[in-house]
């Protein structure tokens, strides 16, 4: 697998460069919002990648609860961290976008609010991982991850409903606004490159976690052999 990874990283860097160039220079300027709209090419793909990461976290957590192996737990830890990172990007680019366009820093629209709640849930997951000790961490974190992920659709539906009752500006032009084909093209390149970046980061972080596991295991073996037998 290692031999595939390095070329993949190179490819990802290339993709990222390409898609960024596209987003900043090639994509047509939006009619009403102007240049600031280009942030959309970071905002939405980040949200998508965060979602992918959290989904991976859910699968890894369930797998851990079933098999109890170190690899599942490492993947869960890795995907949560990368997911939170992308989620943070969404939450920062959101206000940056909203301020010039709508004059407000924050709008409690369905998607942005869901992202905020998601961020809160997974940050709490990371805090739990940090604050629990020893062998329990993995089980407790995996349990919390299941709760968090199951909550996601409920969160989204609730906020959607809340918004229909109490409307406010929707970012990104609402549910059904179409995208100019040229913009769609750039958007998909960015979607692809961000997903690849997410995968690269997850793999690196996973490897780091597994290395830590190996170090611990080596200590254990050394201690076992060191004792009088």
């Amino acid at each position, binding site marked *: 697998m290692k031999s595939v990874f390095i070329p993949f990283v190179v490819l990802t860097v290339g993709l990222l460069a390409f898609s960024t160039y596209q987003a900043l220079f090639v994509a047509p300027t939006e009619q009403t919002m102007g240049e600031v709209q280009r942030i959309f090419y970071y905002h939405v793909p980040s949200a998508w990648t965060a979602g992918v990461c959290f989904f991976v976290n859910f699968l890894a957590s369930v797998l851990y609860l079933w098999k109890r192996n170190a690899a599942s737990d490492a993947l869960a830890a890795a995907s949560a961290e990368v997911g939170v990172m992308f989620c943070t990007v969404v939450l920062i680019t959101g206000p940056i976008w909203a301020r010039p366009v709508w004059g407000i820093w924050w709008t409690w629209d369905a998607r942005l609010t869901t992202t905020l709640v998601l961020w809160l849930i997974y940050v709490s997951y990371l805090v739990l991982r940090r604050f629990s000790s020893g062998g329990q961490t993995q089980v407790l974190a995996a349990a919390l991850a299941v709760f968090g992920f199951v909550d996601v659709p409920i969160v989204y539906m609730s906020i959607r409903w809340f918004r229909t009752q109490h409307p406010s500006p929707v970012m990104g032009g609402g549910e059904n606004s179409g995208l100019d084909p040229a913009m769609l093209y750039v958007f998909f390149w960015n979607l692809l490159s961000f997903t690849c970046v997410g995968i690269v980061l997850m793999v690196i972080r996973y490897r780091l976690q597994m290395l830590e596991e190996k170090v611990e295991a080596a200590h*254990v073996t050394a*201690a076992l052999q060191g004792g009088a*037998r």
Partner: protein
Amino acid sequence: MTGTSDTFSPPVIVLKDLVKFFGRFGAIRGVSASFAPGRLYVVIGDNGAGKSTLLRIIAGLMEPSQGSLTLLGASKVRDVARSLGYMGHAPLLYDELSGMENLRYFAGLYGLHDEGVCQNAMQMVGLDPELSRRVAQYSQGMRQRLSLARAVLHDPELILLDEPFSNVDVHSAREMAALLGRMRDKGKTIFVVTHQAALMEDIADEFVHMTSGQIVAREALLPPRRTSVDSKAEKWL
């Protein structure tokens, strides 16, 4: 090192390459042993030798990091929980309830609803079932006796005791030790972790010595012991 195994009946506990690590600290560093039924084993060793950890693993409260454990023929301790009695280092009792109330609750967890069972257990350890005092107001000796009663309430085949005599007055300690001996005579298998080996000298079948997470010696006391019945102990029978 494997221990002696009784050729006439299957071992009640079989430990194979048991390992337990807390982070980098090896509490149990490779224990393989089998223990025959109907004996009273006394586990001794310094602090940090892994005695309590071993007991907790056998009781099913902790999973080993590596290795396997077979208890009464089952590979999962949960399956034989009904035949297991555990007395922890801490009292494992509710301070706000009386002795009988505690026992009634725990008996219920084992599916026992007969009031008589709880009363017998209390009398067996030398406590008065009529006592309505809350456990918080018990002396340490009384608390340890009640904890023992709770552990043996459901007539388990295997009884695990972690420091049952700690901070207990000599009189209570001797009576508890005698009681353990009599239970062993009835065919129960008993494991006692204690620092007070002297108390157990007369009734133990085997001393298991642990150091740094391993069993380093097993000292069987021959012939198999039977508790002498003296007049003082008689009244508790």
